[in-house]
């Protein structure tokens, strides 16, 4: 994320807020889904996260990375929503409530989603079809109506790009 954009985000500039949202909303939503297991509540958590981030922007240190900072806000927000919702659920139903996901996994979800959002549309499409839809390369070639060789090369390029983007996959930030 451009330092100039982050500086303007700190100042509450609307265009900068949009830029930050466009870059991080997918990862924040993915994180929220992994904790809350509900698209509606994840959408609420995403909204609250960005408003909180904007409110707290003056506390953001531009010398540090932005992703772990907004990750912390998003995680706290989703957990708060999860806890509030859990209190409303009758105790005899509590066993049916998701225990949530480990924080390590949540961090991985956030990081992977950030990486996926940096792929080109073509790369993202083939990775999604391969992993999420569990299609083989010939099936992808058929669906996209492109040669099998093109799918293979595109898939390799996409996964190599992902490996580079995930090269910094580290432990969860403090």
């Amino acid at each position, binding site marked *: 994320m451009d330092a100039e954009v982050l500086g303007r985000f700190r100042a*509450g500039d*609307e265009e900068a*807020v*949009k830029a930050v*949202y466009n870059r991080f*909303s*997918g990862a*924040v*939503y*993915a*994180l929220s*889904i*992994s904790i809350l297991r509900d*698209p509606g509540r*994840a*959408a609420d958590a*995403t*909204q609250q996260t*960005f*408003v*909180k981030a*904007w*409110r*707290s922007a*003056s*506390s953001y240190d531009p010398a540090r990375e932005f992703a772990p900072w907004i990750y912390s806000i998003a995680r706290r927000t989703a957990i708060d929503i999860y806890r509030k919702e859990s209190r409303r659920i009758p105790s005899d139903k509590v066993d049916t409530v998701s225990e949530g996901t480990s924080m390590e*996994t949540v961090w*991985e*979800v956030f990081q*992977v*989603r950030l*990486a*996926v959002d940096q792929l080109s549309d073509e790369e993202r499409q083939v*990775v*999604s079809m*391969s*992993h*999420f839809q*569990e299609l083989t390369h010939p099936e992808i070639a058929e669906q996209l109506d492109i040669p099998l060789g093109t799918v293979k090369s595109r*898939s*390799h390029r996409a*996964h*190599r790009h*992902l*490996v*580079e983007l*995930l090269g910094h*996959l580290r432990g969860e930030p403090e």
Partner: protein
Amino acid sequence: MNRDREAEYLATGTGDRPENSVSLDAARRVLSSSAAWGVPPDSVAVEVLSEIRAQTNPFREPRRRISPMRLLAAAMTLGAILLVTVLGLGSLRDGTRVDLAGTELLPTASGTAWLEPTDAGWSIWIDLDGLPPADDGYYYEGWVWSDDGDGVSIGTFHLRNGLERLSLWSGVDVADYPSIWISLQAEGGVSDEIVMRGRLDPVDDSG
């Protein structure tokens, strides 16, 4: 070469296990889940911007702007009696000081707030210069404001009977609400225009 092997492992989960296979296995799990691919509804972005706009200007439904001519006339009428009352500040000078300045609506206004913690909350004394009495149907309201965009009223006043040192109260910790604003409000209306503002500036008594 390693990158190619890692890319192959990430794509298929087979072949020679690279050193970072644990991370790549985790990434494969995420890529096969809906979390990696879901998109928040468009309404989320709209709501975020809407909420930020609203909080950028909490007095977002102005009913009436203060007429500069009306302010000027009132200020001339009051003349010197609008000078700051600074007598008897006593121990309050040992408290926390906030300098207040007029906004673009009332640039000639100025003032000083003295904040002191008490058992009941924060006692806030404000001495003002250049703030005219509010017209009938209007009043002033003091606020403390947090950096998170939350405002708490600390009292209302009109100044129609001459200027006195204002005594206001805050039930929230001013350390968490470090900005002080004074707004002009319409009776029975919504929040109106900010006419003065300042930010917590502790007095250094060491000297």
